[in-house]
């Protein structure tokens, strides 16, 4: 490892990492040994404070109804019950909407979905609270309900005004195109199914203050919502996140309501209160990935060039806004995926339905937007008789005048050619296609298909102000270090990466640094750990704090080495030692820190970072919303049983660009997991509601099926692009959480090819999502008639 110098690095230098061979390349998760022993604690595992009460949420059984009255008297009289809280008990604002205040914590006047909170019962035991919850008497007068996105559109029920992005003259381009194509595209909901359900533990402290342990990706928002609901300043609330048992977006905005209920109860009873949702409650009450419905018209040249495109995109927001507008925006931004759209108009709108409020989920609308263009290309390939790989190549960005997105962002550092070259160095695509064709020629009941799935994914919160982060690094007088930053750990390895950033910057072994529980009293006003931004934003903030400390320590080192403090810029920090080229002696980091303490030098520093030069104007549909793009490409191969509709993944090869990886094995884990989660969204994971009463029919592990062990392909290879540092990012790395989720869409392209092989050539495959065995069998049958 090359030494760090004391002088602050420029952005360009920061992105040139010390060396490719980082010690962190082989690192495993910083909590791995605690995970496998069961020592790792989650909110529900924390020791209970004395006198802790347990909460149970009373929810609406109706998708839409007028609330005619709430009688809590029987519940209050039940054994062990300490409080029954409703909207009337809220001292501050009865609202937990993440952006728009349209989401009451407890229903007032009307309920808008099955599972909406009406009241909260706290009792000495969870069993007592559950039993008493059944005694809360709520009068309902049922109202007509909108239970599908189509019903919402038909009723003109929207949660947003239209957002349009347009370039060129799409109508004319389509009309003049040699080949026209029109149709509809739908994708379904997806339950996060984090293994750890929502949980909060609230402990009242003196002076009316609260300390909250919460399983959330967004502790600052939990803090803000609790303060608003209670009518208190945020300074009275501390939120801590030990770690999460998975988040995937589901704990970005939707952890807050439960923390608010428990906080209200803690304040009202003066006792600690825990709320933990069981799986059925979690699945019934919280939102999911937005289903999207799109209508499109497209014009192509005969050789498959997309000439013009118009898309109307609708996102099912559920009953309240939550983050839906931003989700829809990201869908619009990603309509291009990796393809140049010369003439395009896309318009998006959030639809209101009487279903749980849909929320962030890995990709955040990006997968839904990208799915649309991939589906259009699949249909066009069938109609034009083109190889689905070739039609994609022909539409990639690149070449004269083909380097600007439909919203006007210029594409710099286009890595798609690089990841394509990397993939093709490992997978002979022509040979794979030939193998598939040969197999299909000799096999009647089983057909194979392959899918190429390129991904270009924009990195940054599209609400530009969110792109900021803070850190607090504290060196103790013995040379050991505590690291605080604003990001939360949900399994993605953020703490591991941050430890390595700090170790690299301070030039000390990583085991000298302890990653602390994320807490709003250590780093304030943080953004959610979301949008794949955790390492990008917090890494820069951690680095900034370490640079400040290095600068202070370098002056101390100069004095100790007999040099003038003006030589401080030349002081190096490396492998636990501190040195200067002009001095013979080397100091240990510990000795230097001890000297600094004795010389009354501050050993604690904050760091702060904001992403420069990003902005977007939604009125114009123009701007540079993204700091950069992450790239990757996957080849997905599978086979379909034409008698049952089942399919099996045979091989998946991925080439992915994470810049200079901060921790290779952790990044590979993110990529593999994202692929299978994306495949699950489009195949086995199906959310079903009762068509008239709106009840969720798939509310448990027994009825909702995420991918299992044997679904992972046996050939599952991920290659990281090497020697490709990204300018202006922490140590040249790139975001990894969301982009690989989209690789799962490659399975649908492959399914199209396999299903098409059951019928005559050139026939459009009509495959609805999710592609369950039933859906695939329907498509096979349609192909054969």
């Amino acid at each position, binding site marked *: 490892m090359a030494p760090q110098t004391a002088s602050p690095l420029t952005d360009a230098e920061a992105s040139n990492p010390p060396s490719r061979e980082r010690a962190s390349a082989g690192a495993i*998760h910083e909590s791995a040994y605690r995970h496998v*022993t069961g*020592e790792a604690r989650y909110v529900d595992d924390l020791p209970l404070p004395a006198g802790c009460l347990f909460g149970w949420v009373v929810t609406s059984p109706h998708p839409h109804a007028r609330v005619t009255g709430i009688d809590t008297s029987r519940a209050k009289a039940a054994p062990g019950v300490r409080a029954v809280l409703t909207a009337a008990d809220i001292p501050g604002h009865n609202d937990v909407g993440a952006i728009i205040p349209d989401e009451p914590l407890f229903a007032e006047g009307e309920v808008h979905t099955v599972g909406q909170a009406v009241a909260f019962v706290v009792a000495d035991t969870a069993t007592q609270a559950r039993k008493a919850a059944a005694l809360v008497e709520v009068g309902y007068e049922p109202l007509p309900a909108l239970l599908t996105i189509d019903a919402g559109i038909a009723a003109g029920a929207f949660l947003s005004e239209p957002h349009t992005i347009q370039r060129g003259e799409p109508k004319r381009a389509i009309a003049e195109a040699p080949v026209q194509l029109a149709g509809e595209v739908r994708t379904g909901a997806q339950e996060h199914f984090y*293994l750890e359900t929502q949980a909060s533990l609230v402990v009242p402290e003196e002076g009316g203050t609260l300390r909250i342990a919460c399983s959330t990706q967004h502790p600052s928002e939990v803090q803000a919502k609790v303060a608003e609901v209670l009518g208190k300043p945020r300074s009275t609330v501390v939120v801590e996140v030990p770690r999460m048992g998975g988040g995937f977006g589901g704990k970005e905005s939707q952890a807050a309501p439960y923390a608010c209920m428990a906080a209200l109860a803690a304040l009202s009873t003066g006792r600690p209160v825990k709320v933990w949702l069981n799986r*059925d409650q979690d699945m019934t009450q919280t939102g999911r990935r937005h289903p999207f419905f799109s209508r499109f018209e497209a014009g192509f040249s005969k050789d498959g060039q997309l000439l013009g495109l118009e898309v109307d995109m609708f996102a099912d927001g559920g009953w309240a806004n939550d983050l839906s507008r931003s989700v829809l925006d990201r869908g619009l931004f990603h309509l291009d995926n990796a393809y140049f759209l010369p003439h395009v108009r896309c318009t998006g709108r959030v639809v209101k339905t009487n279903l749980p409020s849909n929320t962030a989920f890995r990709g955040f609308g990006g997968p839904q937007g990208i799915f649309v263009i991939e589906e259009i290309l699949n249909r066009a390939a069938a109609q034009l008789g083109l190889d689905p790989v070739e039609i994609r190549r022909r539409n990639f960005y690149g070449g004269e005048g083909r380097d600007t997105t439909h919203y006007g962002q210029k594409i710099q550092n286009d890595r798609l050619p690089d990841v394509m070259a990397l993939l093709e160095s490992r997978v002979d695509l022509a040979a794979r296609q030939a193998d598939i064709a040969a197999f299909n020629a000799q096999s009647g009941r089983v057909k194979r298909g392959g899918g190429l799935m390129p991904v270009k994914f924009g990195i940054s919160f599209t609400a530009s102000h969110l792109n900021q982060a803070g850190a607090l690094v504290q060196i103790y007088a013995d040379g050991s270090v505590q690291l605080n930053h604003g990001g939360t750990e949900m399994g993605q390895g953020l703490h591991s990466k941050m430890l390595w950033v700090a170790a690299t910057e301070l030039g000390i072994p990583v085991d000298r640094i302890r990653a602390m529980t994320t807490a709003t009293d250590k780093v304030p006003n943080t953004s959610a750990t979301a949008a794949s931004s955790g390492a990008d934003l917090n890494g820069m903030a951690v680095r900034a704090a370490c640079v400040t400390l290095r600068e202070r320590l370098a002056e101390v080192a100069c004095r100790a080495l007999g040099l003038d403090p003006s030589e401080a810029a030349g002081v190096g920090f490396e492998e636990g030692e501190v040195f200067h080229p002009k001095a013979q002696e080397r100091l240990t980091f510990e000795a230097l820190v001890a000297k600094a303490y004795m010389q009354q030098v501050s050993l604690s520093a904050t760091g702060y970072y904001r992403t420069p030069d990003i902005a977007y104007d939604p009125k114009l549909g123009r701007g540079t919303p993204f700091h950069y793009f992450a790239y990757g490409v996957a080849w997905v191969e599978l086979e379909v049983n034409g008698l049952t509709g089942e399919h099996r993944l045979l091989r998946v090869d991925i080439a992915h660009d994470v810049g200079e990886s901060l921790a290779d094995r952790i990044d590979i884990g993110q990529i593999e997991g994202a692929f299978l989660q994306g495949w699950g969204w489009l195949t086995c994971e199906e959310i079903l509601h009762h068509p008239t009463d709106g009840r969720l029919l798939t509310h448990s592990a027994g009825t909702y099926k995420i991918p299992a062990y044997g679904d992972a392909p046996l050939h599952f290879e991920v290659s990281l692009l090497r020697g490709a540092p990204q300018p202006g990012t922490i140590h040249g790395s790139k975001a990894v959480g969301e982009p690989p989720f989209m690789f799962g869409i490659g399975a649908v392209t492959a399914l199209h090819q396999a299903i098409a092989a059951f019928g005559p050539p050139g026939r459009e495959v009509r495959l609805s999502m999710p592609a369950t*065995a039933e859906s695939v069998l329907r498509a096979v049958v349609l192909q054969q008639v």
Partner: protein
Amino acid sequence: MRYGGRPTGMQSLHFILNGTPVDVPGLSPTTTLLRFLRDREGLTGTKEGCAEGDCGACTVAVLEHDAKGRPRWRAQNACLLLLPMVQGKQVVTVDGLAGPDGLHPAQKALAEATGSQCGYCTPGVVMALFEATYRDDLDEPWKLDAQMCGNLCRCTGYRPIRDAAGAIAGSCPQDRHAEALHEAKPAAIGLSYSHGVQRYFTPTSLEVLWELLAAHPEARFVNGGTDLSLEVTKRFETPPLLISLEGIEALGTLTVSGDGALSIGASVRLADLEDASRRVSPALERMLRYFGARQIKNRGTVGGNLCNASPIGDLPPILIALGAEAVLLSRQGRRTLPLEDFFLDYRKTALEPGEILARIEVPPTPPNARTISYKLSKRRELDISSVAAGMRVVLDEEGVVLEARLAFGGMAATPKRAAKTEAALVGQPWTEATVEAAAPLLAQDFKPLSDHRGSSWYRSTVVKNLLLAFFEETSQQASPRLADRHTATAQVR
């Protein structure tokens, strides 16, 4: 009244937890092991992810003896184990795995394979790996899949978990857990336990069982409990009176005759039946392979699956196709029924009050029989059937169908044979033309429902296709084994 020869009296619950004897304070007998570990012992390593045995996060290992009497560490779902079910047994949890020498090899292998991300499923994965470490029969790659498929992970994509499993399966380190595998089978442990209005009995002989039934005709039976426990964990019920059949040795035996006949005690665990079926019935093995999680097969019993009488139970169709008979016992005596006659209506069996299902007798395979099973579900592993099928034809020397037994689950209120379709096959040559002519009759035999597992259209269409698949698959081999996914080409399953 006596229990296993010991005098009566309300006994206490006790078991050995991570090597230390534990006396359970006065708790309801329907307290799950998971709640006990977390709420009473403060052992929070074991997690609740679903409370229905469908995610594996609560997996622990229990030392039990298999149908051959060999001691085995068996991964089971702590969320479905009621405390009396571990009475007197050894239980190991993730918190107690690491020894004085550091991590258990299963823990080390998983951590170092980057097999944990968020870590919440990890303790359960470790315990499934723990069982794999001491198994000596993981001799084919698919068996490792079957070992691990009961543990859902939402983060990793499973590749690193598979790496860890491959690295440690069957390694059997000579440690204290291996030493426990030399312990002789103890005498059956009887139990008579009460708490408040709840009572739980584990008689160890039929004689005592009859006495109990006479005294408590309203009692419910429990065996593996993998279904009954859901009433506790999902519906929050507290069954007042349970009689467990797992202590009665006569119900736990499994014999395989030289001619391939099987005699299966009602208490035989599904994992043991899977093991025995390998040698005598590939069609039965196919069904058991995707029956459910290893944790469920390690605990669930043949009798439980049949007496549950669910229309989507996985065993009935194939056992009916094999011509199995149910042996029913009561104080008054014994009677036998063809298994298809055991199922009367939705979740209703032919059992009279005071009567139990004691055994299943599967006759030897007739000469020139073709047999197969299929299970279709939304997810291949760890899922409930949308359609389950067991099919057999017996041919004469000319290839004409002498007997046809086509049984399906998920198609009616009970597991049911396709009478009209069978009739159309009998007496006809076993050819594609015959099958294609008979298949449309399935629409007369069954009017399936639509639900979240599959529509009526899917079920109706796919059973016709399965009949065709049956013909095609058995044209090469009388009872084809399931192709390993590691070598699969033509078969998707």
